């Protein structure tokens, strides 16, 4: 057991964690933030993607203890204040989801991509999201949603 302090979606938590607890399980089971999903056990699917100190990480690929002192954002905190983030609006508008299970991870990865590259080409989007699997949508609308969010936020500093 160790004690960690993390800021998640703007709120600070100090919690005891078992050494073997993955960050994703800490978020889901301890903090009840179940919007971050688990889709594999080989860090292949990206369903668990969150932001750690501003960059996208697969939260199944690190221990909760390793996140001590970090600032984390999950899908629940992507748009503070109850508004929707432009990517959330665009995924909804462009139908970039079906079952919705991959969606939080897709959006978190896409948010990181757009913060690095606000105007990605279709290929750049497809390659940037290569680590996120969607079994339902066929990806098409996901790419369109990210393009739409990029267009709508053009010129708006991230």
């Amino acid at each position, binding site marked *: 057991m160790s004690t960690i302090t993390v800021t998640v979606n703007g709120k600070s938590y100090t919690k005891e964690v078992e050494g073997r607890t993955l960050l994703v399980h800490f978020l889901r089971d301890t903090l009840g*933030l179940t919007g971050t999903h688990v889709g594999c056990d080989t860090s*292949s699917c990206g369903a668990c993607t969150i932001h750690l100190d501003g960059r996208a990480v697969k939260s199944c690929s690190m221990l909760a203890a390793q996140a001590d002192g970090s600032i984390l954002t999950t899908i629940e905190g992507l748009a503070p204040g109850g508004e929707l983030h432009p990517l959330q609006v665009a995924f*909804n508008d462009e*139908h970039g989801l079906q079952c919705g299970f991959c969606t939080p991870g897709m959006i978190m990865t896409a948010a990181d991509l757009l913060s690095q590259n606000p105007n990605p080409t279709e290929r750049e989007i497809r390659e940037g999201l290569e680590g996120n699997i969607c079994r*339902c949508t066929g990806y098409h609308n996901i790419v369109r949603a990210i393009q739409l969010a990029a267009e709508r936020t053009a010129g708006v500093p991230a």
Partner: protein
Amino acid sequence: MSNYIGKPLSRVDGVAKVTGKAKYAAEFDAPDLTYGYVVSSTITKGRITHIETSEALSLPGVLSVITHENRPKIAWLDMSYKDQDAPPGSPFRPLRDNKISYSGQPIALVVAETFELARYAASLIRVDYREAPHETNLDTNLHRARKPKSGLASLLKPPPPKPRGNFDEVYAASPAKVEGRYSHSPEHHNPMEMFASTVVYEKDGKLTIYDKTQGAQNSQLYVTQAFNMSFSDVRVISPFVGGAFGSGLRPQYQLFLAVMAARELKRSVRVTLTRQQMFTFGHRPATIQNIALGADSNGKINAIYHDAVGETSQFEDYTEIVPTWSPMIYPAENVTLDYKIVPLDVFTPLDMRAPGGVTGVPAIETAIDEMAYELGIDPLELRLINYSDRNMAEDKPFSSKELRECFRQGAERFGWAKRNPKPGSMRDGHNLIGWGMSTGMWEANQMPARAEAVLTVNGKLRVTSATADIGTGTYTIMTQIAADTLGMPMEDVLFKLGDSDMPLAPIEGGSWTAATVGSAVKVVCEELGRKLFKLAQKIPGSPLAKAKWDDVEFVDKHIRLKQNPAAAVSLQQAVDQNGGAAVWQKSTSLPAMMKQKNYSRAAHSAVFVEVMVDEDLGTIRVTRAVSAIAGGKILNPKTARSQIIGGMVWGISKALEEESVMDHTIGRFMNHSLAEYHVPVNADIHDLDVIFVEEHDDIVNPLGVKGLGEIGIVGMPAAIANAVFHATGKRIRELPITLDKIL
């Protein structure tokens, strides 16, 4: 009136899904929740001689290890384990005894206070086995092929029809012949969400179960029977499902184990499978097919032989409709079909997106392409020569079939006319370009279903039915249908599903949900409308007092005269007339069998594909695909298009990537992770285009819809295989077409 039906509307559950608020089975909390972790067998066949659990049990916080030795009593009869999708045979019962029937079989459940502890304790369990020889190889066991047993399942999956005409004679005399053997590897559904059940143990011993399923009532039935509980003590809830593709048509073993543990410990239990364990129940069966086609020199196909042998388990006879697709598409007079299965030491296969269809259709559609080359006729032309408005497997006309229009529009959009038929004739640098096409087909069924509709005192409509939304858009299209039927804005309509307490609905499969539940929603709203109309007539001085039902329409939250829109009563006024109570209706919709029975009902597609094959590396990319769909009325082009594109990507996946690789020496699927089981990612997908062809059908169901969950995948694999032939001159009849088969 249709304000919503046919419009490309965003999903009603979209916001819940983009904000992480949609909750899946493993995400419901319960006080003092415990966690179960499944231990899987490491051998394929034999007996457990000893299972040592003491070390696991000695850990503080480990509550129980349930094995076949200490499990509580469960139902005795096979009947008690039959779910609504059970094939004939003896369903698998977890922890029944020490017998191991397949690799990865669940042999123990460890329950602990935390997930991490349960997982660790599971690693401490020691098992001794006495191994027995196993058989998992379909190819080397073909001599054991036999006819499947028939049972309830045979109603939906009838065996192929008897031979017609004289295949042998006509084939022998045919000027053009092709013959081939077609096969594909097993595949696993791999929805992104792992199977999970959260069983909430209520104070009185009742269970509320959040389950990943395509039928809450199917899971409820299973639990009540297996554990001898009453229906009122088991409620299954499943509002969101993270994909299923057929895998949720049967209750999976985590449900059984979680319920058993909850009852034993009198505590709430969650069991979530690992991705590896997602390969330990149900898969698309490996299947081997032989086809022979005989045609005259004009291209008319006169003789068809099509057989198929699929794998099943040693305990159940899983079957699919495979060879029957040939005469459903091509109207030959001389047809011989055969279908058999081989029991192997694997888990029972399980319906996976377009079961049987995406097995049989790609085989016949590849053979047709071979025939086109044999005859020197364009593949599209050959299909038109053999076009039929009758389904010769049943010898009935189709209720509607706009496939000809699919061919025309698809070919035009794709630019098929510019194709040079010679293999290897088109290239871009060191990429060989190939163009291929295929027909697709999937049945359009309708089942009985019930729904309930309530217009509340504040004028909101709530409609329920115990169906599921596995991502297809059920919530959205049902809301559209309800809103249009009663002339209400969608914001005032709430459609709920996924609860065993709701009115009866069948498992969500076979692409029948839109037709089945959609019809029930329409009927219940119409009947609710009649009640509201009667109430409206009773209002003193009602402008509708003398009106007949046929004279009125429901528009803008009003019931009004069609001829005189000013004569109207608002729905609110009608409810107010009900003495302060909501107006309530429960209805059943039954397929119009008398009308349907004289017709074959199916959706069709024409698929055109471009591939690029790297000459040196053998890598294949699907750079362009057009799918033209005749799927009846399209309720929502946005959700519909997404269904088809998703299906097309499944088709690419099936043709080029997906395969569960069995190591026959140890009898286990070796690539049991998403790292090694390949599915397309974003970067694999290029240009995909969907066309919905107008198709009117008032026989298929009252809504004229055909269901779109499966038609998107069926035509893709053969179109790709045919394009690969066109690019390379290599005819690959074994799916998936991996690069080793090209080089």
